[in-house]
């Protein structure tokens, strides 16, 4: 154990800057192709559209958002598993986008990933031993056989699996144990950053807690930095130091976990939090829900201006649909500078100067790859908040 942490320490430049990962204006656009003979590009899916975030060494950054918001694509783009269309990602001072071939491969040792579905991310024909050794071999960490095997044992004990697990195959384990193997594999090459994409969402509730606790334990033990990508706000709040909320390819709010959950400022964050069921009937009975109208717009045809304006109960006619808000500090009593929000009217909403109005849901085609000119929407103030759910004739 102590041996491994010391290797890690040596790699760290002394007194280095706090920022381990620095992503600037990252964009990932996927082309939409049409045509039988000629592949014409007829449009783009704007999966990630201008993400800027920094992750400090040793912290856990939680990225939350609903499906289709681009959070997974962003995680993959950070590790260059997905080629970013624009923007830069600097890891420990090195610009990853400038790296190629062997240098990029070597750099990968420092950045590992834990996937959502442990069964499909583990080769069914490899034993746990082979799975764990493969990455280590690729990075030349198995030259000393005894040291490599000591390392294997250490990994297994770190993730709470018996040594006998080495000779078994992935199908012989339960979901929670498989996720432990996935974590051990990520740890095997002694990385600095682990990107965990929905690490617990495929697991049962009681097992989720075990894996969350494990992630926290190994972070302390190996001095890791995490980017945890998840849709479950409660999980993210529990595990993260800082949290970023994503909507349609970009951050809408970013803050220390406690600040964000104490005072969500962006209308989307508010709605998201009010929608999460809380296992306490007394809280459930008296809380006010902001129920958003309609679905997430298609990332192939994102709305102009603020991405959220089509569903926002606080939307204003002045600039929400024309001017895209950037992450900014707000002038609100008691809100620290680290709490940033991409909303034109965050102050007015917080002070109550702006009141929510009703929103007519717009039609969203899940695989729309073209803008729909026939979308009409208007917010009639004073109407009931759920206009389409009334029985006919009421």
């Amino acid at each position: 154990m102590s041996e491994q942490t010391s290797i890690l320490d040596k790699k760290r430049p002394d007194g280095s800057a706090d920022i381990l990962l620095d992503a600037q204006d990252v964009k990932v656009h996927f082309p939409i192709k049409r045509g039988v003979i000629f592949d014409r590009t007829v449009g783009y899916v704007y999966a990630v559209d201008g993400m800027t975030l920094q992750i400090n060494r040793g912290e856990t950054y939680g990225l939350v958002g609903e499906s289709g918001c681009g959070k997974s694509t962003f995680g993959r783009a950070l590790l260059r598993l997905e080629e970013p269309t624009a923007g830069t990602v600097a890891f420990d001072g090195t610009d990853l986008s400038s790296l190629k071939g062997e240098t990029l491969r070597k750099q990968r040792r420092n950045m590992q990933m834990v996937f959502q579905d442990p069964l499909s991310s583990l080769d069914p024909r490899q034993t746990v031993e082979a799975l764990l050794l493969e990455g280590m071999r690729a990075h030349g960490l198995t030259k000393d056989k005894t040291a490599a095997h000591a390392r294997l044992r250490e990994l297994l004990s770190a993730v709470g699996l018996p040594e006998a697990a080495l000779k078994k195959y992935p199908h012989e384990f339960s979901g929670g144990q498989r996720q432990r193997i996935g974590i051990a594999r990520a740890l095997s090459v002694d990385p600095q950053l682990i990107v965990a994409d929905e690490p617990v969402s495929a697991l049962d509730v009681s097992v989720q807690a075990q894996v969350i606790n494990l992630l926290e334990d190994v972070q302390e033990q190996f001095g890791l930095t995490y980017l945890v990508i998840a849709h479950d706000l409660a999980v993210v709040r529990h595990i993260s130091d800082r949290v970023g909320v994503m909507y349609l390819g970009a951050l809408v709010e970013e803050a220390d976990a406690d600040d964000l959950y104490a005072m969500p400022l962006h209308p989307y964050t508010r709605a998201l939090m009010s929608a999460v069921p809380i296992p306490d009937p007394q809280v459930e009975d008296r809380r006010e829900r902001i129920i958003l109208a309609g679905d997430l717009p298609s990332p192939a045809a994102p709305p102009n201006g603020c991405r959220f304006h089509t569903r926002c109960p606080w939307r204003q006619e002045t600039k929400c649909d024309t001017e895209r808000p950037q992450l900014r500090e707000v002038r609100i009593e008691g809100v620290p500078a680290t709490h940033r929000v991409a909303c034109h009217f965050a102050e007015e909403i917080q002070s109550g100067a702006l009141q929510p109005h009703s929103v007519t849901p717009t039609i969203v085609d899940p695989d729309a790859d073209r803008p729909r000119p026939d979308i009409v929407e208007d917010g009639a103030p004073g109407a009931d908040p759920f206009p389409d759910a009334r029985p006919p004739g009421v």
Partner: protein
Amino acid sequence: MSAAAYEPEVRAGDSLLSVRDLVVEFGGKGRPTFRAVDGVSFDVGPGQTIGLVGESGCGKSVTSLAIMGLLPARGNKVAGSATFDGTDLLTLDQREMSDRRGRDIAMIFQDPLSSLNPVVPIGVQVAEVMQRHQGLKKAQAMQESRLLLDRVGIPDPARRLKEYPHQLSGGMRQRALIAMALACKPRLLIADEPTTALDVTIQAQILEVLRELVVDSGTALIMITHDLGVVAGLCDEVNVMYAGRIVESASRHEIFARPEHPYTHGLLGSIPRLDGTRAGALHAIPGSVADNIPWTGGCAFAPRCTNATAICREQSPALEADPTGIPDHLLRCHHPILPGTDSTHE
């Protein structure tokens, strides 16, 4: 309620569906049988919502499939009774059952895409139910279908009627499925993880539709879910299932305020909460369902239980009234976590 063994009182005119000692066994020639549901009993009345809660493999979905008569004809054995409005559903033959399904009892499933026919427009699929059960003409059924889609909150229903399931988003598909379930104004709706595949903001919309349905039309609702948060906001009564049996049953306020079964207690302790303080490590339940022992030889949960003693591995606990005398709080445990004796969780 001080009786030792659990004998649910039959409240006259109160219960719409009354399930008694439901047992479902799977297995075939030469293979050992597996008891997925083991003596489950519960009641649900009009306008009432009851929750069946548990983790994967606890038998909650099999319970609902057995009630609906949707289990495959071969390879399983169903025993017990499910009395709906005076008729035992389990004794009906295929034809009688399909007359009831969709008319009196409807069900919505977790994955709306695989529950909808991909090559039929959703309007037609909704209309079909009314043509089959209410003998409506096609045009009339389509008209009703439009109203239903409107009622469950699908924008621009006239156009959506003609669209196919793949053209709808996940939330809209689930709404379409609910519209189908509501088509004949069923008296009982069984919702099997209806929001698990959806995002939280969409989940909130769907739960709102279900809530209104129960309040406005007095439909009885059986909510099957693994999410205790959903249960806390929706169900009047909660049944927690583990390894095929109900281990704790109480009103929602009671069960969340005083979870007495170590499993329920553990489940609540292992969920990170959005409100309250961010305390250190979560109180995970050790092990996994693979560690269970069969109910016949003791308590299935014993290997994972912090309160377990020798008796838990030898004697199967019965579902009994709460030892502190709280009415309608039932418990299957030798060593419940009672107020004041709390040793595992703060």
